[in-house]
């Protein structure tokens, strides 16, 4: 039961989600290979080799990590594997369905639990229902939601070989023209232990500085609602929810967030929710483990001061 995990990486850094996904893949029983494609493949491969459970790292430096170029590459390697897995993030979501169609397979995506080699759970209807599916197909193509799986156990890595994949370089059909990166040094949202999220009530991009300040005090990642992103207060990659990122931190502090069902879809796996809202009846206030009724512009600065005082 060999497994191939497609590496998610950016600017020469392996995604923090990969440790979780490789650990989940290892639970399927077979040896786990990681495939790293693209320009920084060698550097990223060295990082992948450090993950416990990796049997071999395969690199394809000449293949750009796009759906159009990875599909034929993965299809050519598919014969060696029973499972091909990617992180449920931009690249994996782009590649796995395209690959599946070209192999005439039905993929199972956004998997949140694995019960054996061919039985998977995935949320539907914005997480308001959980579907268990069984696949009798000869091969399983999956994307996993990293937030649903525990981080890799601290175990020594096995010093796996790093081997280039044979195959021709493929010119990408789609050209990257420009990238607009959200600046900042906050932790990765999808795998953060603490997330501070702001809603439309935060009022402005300026207001989000306050949210970021609180996040900085706690070493937390920053999230936002769609309404806040649409209004231009927060960048799109901060959006949490059905159509944004899925988070499952130990602590989510939601500030001026009503708790629309599309937002709740992104926070279901959260252990503890703190909600700060002027409206005690807001849906999220009813769900939250701890709720404080109050105006965020008064509460958040006072909370920052208090956390600094008690050394949070």
């Amino acid at each position, binding site marked *: 039961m060999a497994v191939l995990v497609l590496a998610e990486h950016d600017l020469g850094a392996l995604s923090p989600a990969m440790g979780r996904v490789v650990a989940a893949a290892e639970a399927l029983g077979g040896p786990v290979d990681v495939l790293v494609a693209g320009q920084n493949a060698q550097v990223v491969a060295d990082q992948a080799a450090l993950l416990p459970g990796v049997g071999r790292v395969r690199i394809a430096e000449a293949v750009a990590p796009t759906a159009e170029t990875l599909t034929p590459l993965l299809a050519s390697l598919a014969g060696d594997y029973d499972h091909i897995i990617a992180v449920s993030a931009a690249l994996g979501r782009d590649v796995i369905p395209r690959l599946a169609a070209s192999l005439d397979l039905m993929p199972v995506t956004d998997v949140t639990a694995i019960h054996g080699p061919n039985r998977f759970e995935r949320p539907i209807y914005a997480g308001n229902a959980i579907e268990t599916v*069984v696949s009798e197909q000869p091969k399983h193509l999956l994307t996993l939601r990293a937030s649903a799986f525990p981080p890799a156990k601290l175990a020594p890595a096995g010093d796996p070989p790093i081997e280039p994949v044979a195959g021709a370089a493929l010119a990408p059909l789609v050209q990257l023209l420009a990238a607009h990166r959200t600046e900042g040094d906050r932790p990765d949202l999808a795998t953060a232990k603490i997330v501070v999220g702001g809603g439309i009530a935060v009022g402005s991009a300026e207001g989000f500085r306050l949210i970021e300040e609180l996040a900085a005090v*706690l070493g937390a990642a920053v999230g936002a609602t769609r309404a806040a992103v649409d209004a231009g207060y927060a960048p*799109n990659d901060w959006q949490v929810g059905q159509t944004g990122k899925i988070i499952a931190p130990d602590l989510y502090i939601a500030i001026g967030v009503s708790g629309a069902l599309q937002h709740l879809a992104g926070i279901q796996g959260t252990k503890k929710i703190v909600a700060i809202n002027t409206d005690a009846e807001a849906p999220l206030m009813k769900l939250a483990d701890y709720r404080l009724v109050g105006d965020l512009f008064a509460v958040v600065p006072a909370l920052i001061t208090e956390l600094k005082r008690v050394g949070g």
Partner: protein
Amino acid sequence: MKKILVAAKRVVDHNVRIRVRSDGSGVETDNVRLSMNPFDKHAVEAAVQLVEQGHAAEVVVVSIGPKGATDVILTGLAMGGHRGILVETDEKLETLAVAKLLAAVAREENPDLVLLGKQAVDDDSNHVGQMLAGLLGWPQATFASGIEVTEEGLKVTREVDFGRAEYGLPLPAVVTADLRLNTPRNAALPMVMKARSKPLAVRPAAEFGLDLAPRLRVEKIAPPPERAGGRAVADIAELAAIIVETKAEAEIG
């Protein structure tokens, strides 16, 4: 561009709070409001805007589903689509089967661009656009928040994990719409009336002679674990204490 094909799915309206049937067999869809998948409205809007800007001549709206899915085609035609195609089936098709049918329609229609939503909010799959592009061997741009026509084809802004990025694509291509692509119009009544007189072809899915059989067996559908709800916190000091304690636990665990 001569022609744009837009795929639109009829789904349980996104404002409906769905109920999971107690026997685990599925989600209650009898007597609930159905409407066009929200993302697909953005796809239709983008297509109609390309026509209005003089970049395209015709918008064909296609939906796959039962007779009732005609409603979403009419919505698309009321928004400015020129004609519709219903690929009729009473079976609940998997995304792979939907993509195969759309590929068959695309081969007949030869569009320069196929626009879809990025995901259907019932199954939340986020598959069909990528699958269709794979079957046709066309370039794809998913999660689009901007589309511009260029000499070479399209410049598409995509929402990705690190922010946004712009990509150049040759045509024909497949693009899937995100919510920030545009603001879909509400069709005025005269447009709604006019939609009924626009051409609408009905094609039985079986006519395409494709393998549409499901590949996955749905074993059960269950409601998610419920959250217990919590308690009110008296003041900032108590809140800070709770946060500090939870943070400490998180760092150990």
